């Protein structure tokens, strides 16, 4: 398994070209006010939409910065052995005592990541300030981030993948990611319940008499998942084996017809981890609405009609608001309740660890928002972006609850984007009228107030 490294990420959509990152870099690296010496270069785009050059998506700023390539060309063309990929930090290290200033590395790099510092006559490149890049906190617009999720990859990559290769999910579905990560984390001493839904549909229950997992897995009814799993767990306890009882269920299986057994197991404090993959509908069976489907959303059972002559009202998506399942679970006083998103893997991992620990003594409930490329109608490469926008608009709030600590936000969003930023990212909301959008925005704010009231201290996390 290869290694993953921390990296500086640039979001051009948030950049306004203020240059604070370059000032910070020049100051820290060269004690200089000359931003041309900065190792990160932000460039204003002046030639959008010119012939022969792709216009790009809406941004006006471009970036030149060492990418700390995994297969670095600058290293391969250095005649002096002055450049090396550091396998601990991932940074391409430059050894000034070996460098002969020949500039061949600037030929090798196609990304302008290493260039001449005219003041010294030597090449210069970003070294991520030894893992604490000065440019990132200097950015007033959050356009630069230092991404540190690599440790998850490095750690998890060494654990056994307990799902079969080649699951039959839709292209662009994030549930495979969620399933593989979760089972790796939970480990081999696990019994898995997957009620009807996308998770067994993707192959967890297997094909041709074999299971899709390397742990015992069963396929309960939609109605009795939590009850069956509770029985299985009790039997294992009776024979003295310590296992994790894990359910991975859809929002339909949890919030609609499966709710009775789920509520019962939570109330009894059964020792299990119940993970809900909330894609806001019955996506596996043809995109029917569930009680978790949000107001206004198109599904195959909340269609969008076209007004014909003489008609006054036609259907315009779902007319009810979504049920707030995780808050309902908080009211069961479970040992652990949390919401999570695959766009925030570090947060998800912390919650997974706590949920696993809580499931040793009681009921743990983890509600993961899971955008559905097929049912929500967005391009297959946009899953993480949609998930991120949900959080950035407060459409989805990330928090956790324990009876001792109460509820607190783990990723508070102080300046949420308007909910339209989320809605316009997908096709299921395309038909919305201004009134419907206003309703959704109002609901987002109402939800937020509600959760904030429950939180012992607002933004205390």
């Amino acid at each position, binding site marked *: 398994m290869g290694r993953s490294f921390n990296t500086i990420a640039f979001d051009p959509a948030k950049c306004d070209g203020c240059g604070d990152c370059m000032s910070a870099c020049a100051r820290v690296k060269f004690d200089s006010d000359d931003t041309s010496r900065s190792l990160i270069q932000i460039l204003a785009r002046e030639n959008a939409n010119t012939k022969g050059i792709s216009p790009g998506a809406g941004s006006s700023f471009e970036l030149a910065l060492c990418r700390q390539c995994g297969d670095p060309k600058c290293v391969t063309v250095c005649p002096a052995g002055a450049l090396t990929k550091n396998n601990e930090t991932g940074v391409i290290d430059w050894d000034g005592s070996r460098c002969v200033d020949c500039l061949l590395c600037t030929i090798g790099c196609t990304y*302008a990541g290493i260039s001449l510092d005219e003041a010294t006559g030597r090449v210069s490149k970003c070294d991520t300030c030894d893992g604490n890049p000065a440019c990132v906190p200097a950015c007033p617009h959050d356009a630069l981030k230092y991404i540190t999720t690599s440790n998850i990859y490095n750690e998890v990559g060494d654990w056994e993948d307990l799902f079969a290769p080649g699951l039959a999910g839709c292209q662009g579905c994030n549930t495979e990611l969620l399933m593989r990560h979760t089972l790796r984390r939970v480990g081999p001493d696990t019994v898995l319940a997957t009620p009807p839904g996308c998770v067994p549909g993707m192959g967890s229950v297997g094909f041709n008499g074999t299971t899709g997992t390397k742990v015992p897995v069963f396929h309960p009814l939609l109605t009795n998942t939590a009850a069956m799993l509770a029985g299985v767990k009790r039997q294992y306890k009776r024979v003295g084996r310590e296992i994790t009882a894990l359910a991975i269920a859809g929002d339909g299986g949890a919030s609609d017809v499966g709710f009775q057994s789920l509520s019962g197991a939570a109330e009894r404090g059964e020792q299990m981890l119940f993970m809900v993959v909330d894609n806001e509908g019955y996506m596996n069976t043809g995109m029917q609405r569930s009680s978790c489907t949000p107001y206004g959303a198109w599904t195959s059972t909340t269609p969008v009609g076209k007004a014909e002559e003489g008609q006054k009202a036609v259907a315009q998506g779902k007319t009810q608001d979504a049920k707030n399942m995780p808050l309902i679970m908080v009211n069961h006083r479970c040992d652990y309740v949390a919401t999570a998103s695959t766009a925030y893997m570090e947060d998800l991992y912390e919650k997974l660890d706590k949920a696993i620990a809580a499931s040793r003594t009681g009921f743990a409930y983890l509600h993961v928002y899971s955008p559905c490329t097929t049912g929500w109608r967005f391009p297959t490469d946009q899953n993480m972006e949609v998930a991120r926008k949900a959080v950035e608009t407060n459409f989805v709030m990330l928090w956790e609850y324990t009876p001792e600590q109460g509820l607190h936000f783990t990723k508070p969003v102080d300046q949420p984007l308007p909910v339209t930023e989320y809605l316009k990212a997908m096709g299921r909301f395309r038909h919305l009228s201004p009134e419907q959008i206003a309703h959704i925005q109002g609901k987002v704010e109402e939800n937020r107030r509600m959760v904030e009231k429950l939180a012992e201290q607002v933004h205390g996390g």
Partner: protein
Amino acid sequence: MEQTQYLIVGSSHAALEAITAIRMHDTDGSITLVTRDPHLPYSPTVLPYVVSGRSAPENVYLRDAAFFDENKVSYRPGVALKALHTARNVAELADGSEIGYAKVVLATGAAPAIPPIPGIDKVDYHVLRTLEDAKRLNAAMKKSQRAVVLGAGLVGMHAAENLVKAGANVTIVEMSAQLTSGYFDATAARLIEEAFTANGAKIRTSSQVTWLAADGDDIVLTLGDGTTLNADLLLVATGVRPELDYLKDSGVACDKGILVDDRMRTSVANVWAAGDCAQARGFFDDAQVMNAILPDAAVQGRIAGMAMAGDPGVADYVGGVPLNTYHFFGRHAISVGSSKVPDGGVERTRFDEASGRHLKLIMKDGRLLGIYGVNEFFDAGVMAQLIVRRTDLSAVQDRLFEQPLTVGRELMSQIWR
């Protein structure tokens, strides 16, 4: 007889890239590297800095012994390839031993081309291609009063600068009318020439040496116009050419170098070649050319390694593009691409006498063909991409000419971010 899956001959950039490429696809196949050089791998390009004393000879190695252990490579320095018996898939080495190979890549580089000057075999001259050459020249330089450098390519010019800085009277003798021809354009060459003459070097372009003779410890050079030069140090730096005696009777087709296709395959099965010994397609015309430069050696070595290992990710060679960087007396010169202005092409130059900044752009149909600069820094890697991608720059060519650094970066970030 010993057998190996992959035999690598040579130990510089092309060979090292081939190893990396093979190991990315085939973690277990046996790799054996034989090389004439007795040292750990180093780059011929670093040798001028060993001559100047800037780089310590023990500090220029590109890889340590651990690299070969980690990559499971049997590393055999100090043993040259004597003959390649392609019918049997066997390499015969200079020590008489034989190695059977499934696949072999020839990355044996090039050696100094020694001009057939009468008397050259009677004098003690220097060349610069190996670490030993560099150490010997470094020692001789310290004692030299009157040095002559034959050939004004980058190796010769580097050495001449070192000799000037070491205090010798230096004369550079070049056959063609321009210094660094083939690397830099006339304006750049003039700036280079002025820098050298300002520092006391004498330059004789359009000059040929017709006779060499020893006179005590001195060497006497007779030039085409009848003048004579006395030198206590003579460096012959009139270019390089591959030494391919080991391919005699192998059936591997050669011209100036080993002829290879776009996957670095030679004319004979199981034999690849890369780097300075290979003659591959040029980018600007489809003829096979010698493009003995470091970046190209790395690219070719990578392709050869991928092709040998059967890596499905291997892509065709885009063709050799001339790429050079050169430092002289505190200034720098960079050249990317072709210096020829084709029919219908446009050449744009600007030069600022005060700062010594010079820039030349060669374009055709809105496409960049070449860019040359002195003291004007631009990202050569970005420019090379604009050339090989044949990006239509019609809309930005004025800005590119004014600000090649920022506009190149802007384009890079948009086109191949």
